[in-house]
């Protein structure tokens, strides 16, 4: 590239101009794109008098009164955080454990029905959660599990079709020499899996773990079916409850939005590469 541009000196200024235009346009576009998020955070920090002023992108003065009010409207906020965390953490751990086992078996072991299982898993990606929800709702109600996180966590302990397929695709890319070396050392399949395969599949666990965690943290539909009593709510339900009742209190609503989104944004900023890679891998899986 540099050679070419040195030889064709006349082209250089126009190319620089093109690059500059490109970055100029993209900076404006991405700034506009992220505007709603920035504006929401900004609104949560404004005084009520300044709420609708266009020059308040960076609030002056900054106030935290809306956050205080929010904890007044939702005194159990800490509880909602805890409820959400319990579901997201246990659900993620369960999905990773069961699905990585299934994915590994489908990638490496030969057993009758393996391809049928794979096909069934792919078919279930098509089944809407709503079509399996109603009988489960009746069962969990009869077990007395409504308003507990159990109806959401227990099914996840048995893995998810998407995650198992994801792990299968990943394990297919690992070299078989890993197992060969372990079997020379006399390790059985369980020890090989735990001591050799899992440590070598870090990227897959991290990527899928992050995706699952974020998805569970953000979910609303299933929670709103099972968790109807207010002290069993998760964060998205608490946030949703503000909308109808406190429509005009934008500061408080945006404070809620910011608090619910903040952990995910922080996780995204730290693990951006892994989350994006996980998404890209999930696309290639098909």
């Amino acid at each position, binding site marked *: 590239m540099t050679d070419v541009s040195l030889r064709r000196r006349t082209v250089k200024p126009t190319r620089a101009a093109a690059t500059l235009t490109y970055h100029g346009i993209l900076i404006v576009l991405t700034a506009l794109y992220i505007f709603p998020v920035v504006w929401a955070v900004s609104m949560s920090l404004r005084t009520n008098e300044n709420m609708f002023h266009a020059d308040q992108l960076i609030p002056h003065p900054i106030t935290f009164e809306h956050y205080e009010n929010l904890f007044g409207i939702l005194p159990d906020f800490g509880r909602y955080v805890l409820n959400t965390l319990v579901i997201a953490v246990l659900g993620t751990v369960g999905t990773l454990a069961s699905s990585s086992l299934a994915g590994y078996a489908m990638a490496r*072991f030969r057993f009758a029905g393996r391809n049928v299982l794979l096909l069934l898993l792919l078919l279930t990606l098509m089944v809407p959660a*709503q079509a399996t929800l109603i009988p489960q709702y009746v069962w969990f109600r009869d077990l007395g599990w409504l308003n507990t996180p159990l109806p959401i966590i227990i099914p996840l302990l048995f893995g998810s079709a998407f995650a198992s397929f994801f792990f299968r695709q990943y394990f297919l890319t690992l070299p078989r020499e890993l197992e060969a070396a372990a079997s020379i050392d006399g390790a059985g399949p369980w020890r090989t899996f735990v001591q050799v395969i899992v440590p070598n599949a870090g990227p897959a666990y991290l990527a899928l773990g992050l995706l699952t965690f974020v998805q569970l943290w953000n979910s609303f*539909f299933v929670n709103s079916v099972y968790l109807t009593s207010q002290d069993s709510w998760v964060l998205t339900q608490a946030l949703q409850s503000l909308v109808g009742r406190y429509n005009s209190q934008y500061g408080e609503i945006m404070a809620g939005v910011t608090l619910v989104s903040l952990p995910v944004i922080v996780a995204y900023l730290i693990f951006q590469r892994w989350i994006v890679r996980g998404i890209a891998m999930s696309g290639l899986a098909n």
Partner: protein
Amino acid sequence: MSSRETPHPRRGILRRRSSLRTREARTGYLFVLPQVVGLVAFIGVPLVASLGYSFTHWDLIAPAPEFVGFDNWAAMLQDPRVPAVLLNTGKFILLGTTSFLLFSLIAALITYTPRRFVGVYRAIIFLPYVLSQIAVGVVWRWMFNTESGPLTVVLEAVGIRSPDWLLDPATAMTSIAIMTTWQGIGYGLTLFVAGLSGVPEPLIEAARIDGANVVQRFFHIILPLISPTVFFLTVTSLIGALQLFDPVVAMTSSSAGVAGAGGPDNSTRTIVLYMYNQLFNLSEAKSGLGYAAALAWMLAFLTFLITAIQFAVGRRTIYYEAGQQSRGRSRRRARTENTHD
């Protein structure tokens, strides 16, 4: 493997190989056991049981459901709300899915070239995708506010009469589609960039030398090569669009909560929202668990039908052969099959 087995007499090999194989199969079954139990208990059985419930009437208060034959299905065919929610969902698919695919592809084409900072641009565009649809919906509810919302203010500042967005039945679903498109572009962009990175640069260069312009290069070289990604995104985003729920709740619910969502004038009521309200008897004329189960099965059937049509069309139009991903995959498959025995 073979070097270890050659010294043994032939019979011994066979016996040993078969016992090895049963042991391998047994381990395999143990490994997939949790997932298989999950598949049966939380998808297979409920799917069938759901169909069973669709032939019953139950308010969840009576001790047991009452068998009513095809009543729910007959009621569904006569319920004027059903074509209405199908139409609303269809409108969302038409607007939301199309714009999602189109803008994701455009964003990918703009940012996939290896220039400086493209990673930063992509990271910013991806951010909304990791946020909750409820949180994002609440923010966009404000964006669409007709009194002091940013969109209205900007449009009116440049002299355009702003539509009434979420307050007008004609534009409410469009507003929701704008929000979901905005949130989803980062995801589509990521997959398209992954697909585009598989397009061999020399091929595009060769076409350029042969005199193909940008448009020709896109439609005759790039698009066929990324058609597997287009197909994957179309199938998955349509499945998701059929289940639209969270954004509608966040953007249209009233003080009555979810029961008040779907307005104005029922213009954003989707299949799943209707099913949800039926399940919990929320202000609906015909209601109950059985009717909700029938609606859920209609949704499952519709999903299956639309996906099957896409696969039938896709088989004829997708170009898999030269794509680097699929070539890599078949090579990998060949390798794993060789090493099995």
